[in-house]
């Protein structure tokens, strides 16, 4: 298995090709089977690779394969190369595992959609790209598939492109990501000009020697890379696309905008840990941005009423945690959180999808309530996921989030820790708010929707249950914290990065864990009080703090701000350029040349008599002339 890593990503590629070319002809059953089967095969291959990797001694858990040379120009060399180490092993398991469940779920969710084959084609293409992204052994290949997953994201957000909001959301995601990707591309170029290579192993080997630690170059590289990560992983300031991306089908939100693609930024930062370690400034930027995003997004989530948007802001917030972890040097914890988050966040999305499915498309939690009686499996699994997200012991989220907060505290980042702790409180509150408003209390469902209200079919609920099991239990691979099986597996990857981060402050692990649990429980208690025991409180709060409420409801007016500061000036400038420059100058010169040629041609075309003999005659004149030159003057 380890000598043919290409077996992991190749199946979704085949599925993509088959479904893409023949999807309309082979029928829905076959399309679904092929799509799921291909990802299932990838999952098996990934499990096999993991098994082989585990069988090796810890220091030999690194397999690199070059499938084919790709670009060789001068001293620039980039290959189709795959790298499997514990970090990418975790990533491919998440991608193929969660991806497989979501594929299965999609069979039920997308059953009625006329573009069923197209959906699975995109989904398979995405899975392939994502696997290649995490398996790439150099920055260029990473970049290419970074763009490829961006493309899939765009295609899938705008999957229902006949709906204007969906098409706009797709474009928004694409354009916002361009900003980040531009930074990423610059980072990669700078990396190559300063080190002359893009392969991970060579870069990390050369970086400490050739780059001044803390110097301008490495700081610029890492900040540019991080700019790419903020785009892809929806961090301040480039997070604005993710909430809108909820226009896509819910399985897409689960797979791309919760479990896998948006974590690519975290993966990239973790992968580049040796570089970030050389740039302490960048690390603190990462930590601060992560912490701020965690709190910022959580506050917005407090008042949202669209079930998917709540979960989306939650995703942004949780991604902030991951960056926070990276920033404080707790890379393993960040990746751990990435993994647990993939399970419970995918579950949350799939659960909301199940609700939306059951309510015939209703997404507003104000028009839900009391759904637990009708959709017990969805409700229970949603609750598990919500609690896991809130960080309640002993569910998965608790272990990973606690570890990140502990890492921040232990690393001496007190302020950042405070941000994270505040975010954790908010998270617990809004997750439970969401759960209560959706599943508990009295039903506020519209009558015609209530008529059709039903639990989802097994093809959707079985993945929910499986994910719930993982969301509940997957945290235990990281028990005891910092020394669990997970850490023994992944930690060696970050061995080099660890030494610099170090432990600056000494804090007890157990007290810290208890503290964060208490914070979460307070959030849970408050939510219960607000939405179960005293349902009138929220309304009173809104009345008392109308300005704050409006600000949160309008997401701090960031979209409006961006519109005013960036979009509108560019639009006006472009209009001006169009009217005053493009039309008279550029079009004018092009048309002028065209007109000139047309006038010239009008005269010259008389030469084209259409008579072959005339052409032959002129031909002969030429031959005679040349021959005359050769015969007389040479």
């Amino acid at each position, binding site marked *: 298995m380890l000598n043919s890593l290409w077996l992991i990503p190749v199946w979704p590629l085949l599925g993509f090709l088959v479904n893409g070319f023949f999807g309309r002809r082979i029928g829905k059953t076959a399309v679904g089977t092929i799509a799921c089967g291909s990802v299932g095969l990838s999952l098996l291959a990934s499990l096999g690779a993991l098994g082989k990797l585990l069988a090796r001694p810890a220091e030999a858990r690194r397999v690199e394969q070059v499938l084919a040379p790709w670009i060789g120009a001068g001293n620039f060399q980039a290959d189709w190369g795959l790298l499997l180490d514990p970090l990418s092993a975790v990533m491919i398991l998440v991608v193929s595992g969660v991806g497989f469940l979501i594929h299965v779920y999609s069979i039920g969710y997308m059953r009625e959609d006329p573009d069923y084959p197209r959906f699975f084609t995109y989904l398979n293409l995405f899975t392939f790209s994502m696997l290649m992204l995490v398996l790439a052994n150099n920055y260029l290949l990473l970049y290419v598939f970074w763009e490829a997953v961006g493309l899939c994201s765009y295609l899938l957000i705008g999957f229902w492109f006949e709906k204007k909001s969906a098409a706009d959301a797709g474009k928004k995601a694409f354009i916002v990501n361009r900003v980040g990707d531009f930074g990423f591309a610059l980072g990669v170029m700078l990396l190559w000009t300063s080190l002359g290579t893009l392969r991970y192993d060579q870069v990390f080997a050369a970086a400490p020697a050739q780059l001044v630690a803390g110097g301008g170059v490495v700081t610029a590289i890492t900040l540019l890379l991080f700019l790419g990560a903020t785009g892809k992983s929806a961090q301040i300031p480039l997070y604005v696309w993710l909430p809108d991306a909820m226009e896509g089908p819910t399985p897409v939100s689960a797979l791309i905008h919760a479990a896998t693609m948006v974590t690519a930024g975290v993966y990239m930062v973790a992968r580049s840990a040796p570089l970030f370690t050389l740039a302490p400034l960048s690390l603190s930027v990462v930590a601060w941005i992560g912490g701020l995003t965690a709190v910022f997004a959580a506050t917005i989530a407090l008042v949202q009423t669209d079930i998917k948007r709540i979960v989306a802001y939650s995703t942004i917030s949780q991604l902030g945690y991951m960056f926070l972890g990276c920033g404080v040097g707790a890379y393993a914890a960040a990746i751990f959180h990435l993994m647990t988050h993939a399970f419970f966040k995918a579950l949350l999305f799939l659960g909301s999808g199940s609700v939306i499915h059951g309510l015939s498309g209703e997404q507003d939690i104000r028009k839900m309530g009391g759904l637990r009686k009708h959709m017990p499996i969805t409700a229970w699994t949603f609750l598990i996921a919500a609690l896991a997200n809130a960080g309640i012991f002993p569910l998965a989220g608790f272990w990973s989030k606690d570890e990140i907060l502990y890492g921040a505290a232990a690393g001496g980042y007190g302020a950042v820790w405070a941000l994270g702790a505040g975010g954790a409180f908010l998270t617990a509150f809004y997750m439970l708010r969401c759960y209560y408003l959706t599943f508990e209390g009295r039903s506020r469902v519209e009558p015609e929707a209530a008529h059709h209200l039903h639990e989802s079919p097994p093809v959707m609920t079985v993945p929910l249950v499986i994910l719930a099991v993982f969301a509940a239990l997957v945290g235990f691979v990281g028990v005891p914290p910092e020394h669990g099986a997970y850490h023994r597996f992944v930690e060696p990857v970050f061995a080099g990065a660890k030494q610099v981060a170090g432990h600056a402050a000494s804090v007890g692990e157990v007290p810290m864990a208890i503290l964060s649990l208490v914070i979460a429980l307070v959030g849970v208690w408050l939510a219960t009080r607000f939405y179960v025991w005293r349902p009138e409180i929220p309304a009173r709060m809104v009345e008392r703090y109308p300005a704050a409420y409006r600000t949160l409801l309008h997401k701090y007016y960031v979209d409006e701000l961006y519109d005013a500061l960036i979009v509108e000036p560019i639009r006006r400038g472009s209009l001006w350029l169009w009217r005053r420059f493009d039309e008279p100058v550029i079009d004018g010169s092009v048309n002028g040349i065209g007109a000139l040629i047309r006038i010239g041609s009008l005269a010259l075309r008389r030469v084209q008599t259409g008579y072959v*003999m005339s052409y032959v005659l002129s031909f002969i004149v030429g031959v*005679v002339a040349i*021959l*005359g030159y050769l*015969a*007389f003057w040479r």
Partner: protein
Amino acid sequence: MELLVFAGLALVAAVAGLLVIVQRHAVYSALFLIITMGSLAGIYILLDAHFVWVIQVIVYAGAIMVLFLFVIMLLDIRSEPAPWAPPDRGRILIAVLLSVVLLAELGVAVARRFVLAPAGGPAVASSFGRTQTVGRLLFTDFLFPFEITSIILLVAMVGAMVLAKKRLH
């Protein structure tokens, strides 16, 4: 003796060559072209082209010209007015003049460069121009162009079929 044979064949070739282009009917043009080619084949023997001359007969006279005749008959083309009829007269005059100039130039070139070459040329090996020699060269030094010609022929074959095929409406 050799000169005599050459003179005879060259005369036939020259006259027939002239007649090719002044005939009113394409069939006669074709016949005179065949005669030209036949006398050229004879001249090839004088040049020790023992393989090429028979190929000339088979390919040009036996295949290409038959194809020409075939097409002429298939298309049922009537005699046309004399080529020197008024509308074309000026053009024809120019063309003939140009050709005379061309011929003069070629003559000058030959006179300046080759008139002093010894008549009859150097002695050549008995294998010169024989089938075996040609074959050996084709399959060794000229193998690549030889293979290319097979592709050319294939392409031409397919092209001719596609072009000449009757479209079914």
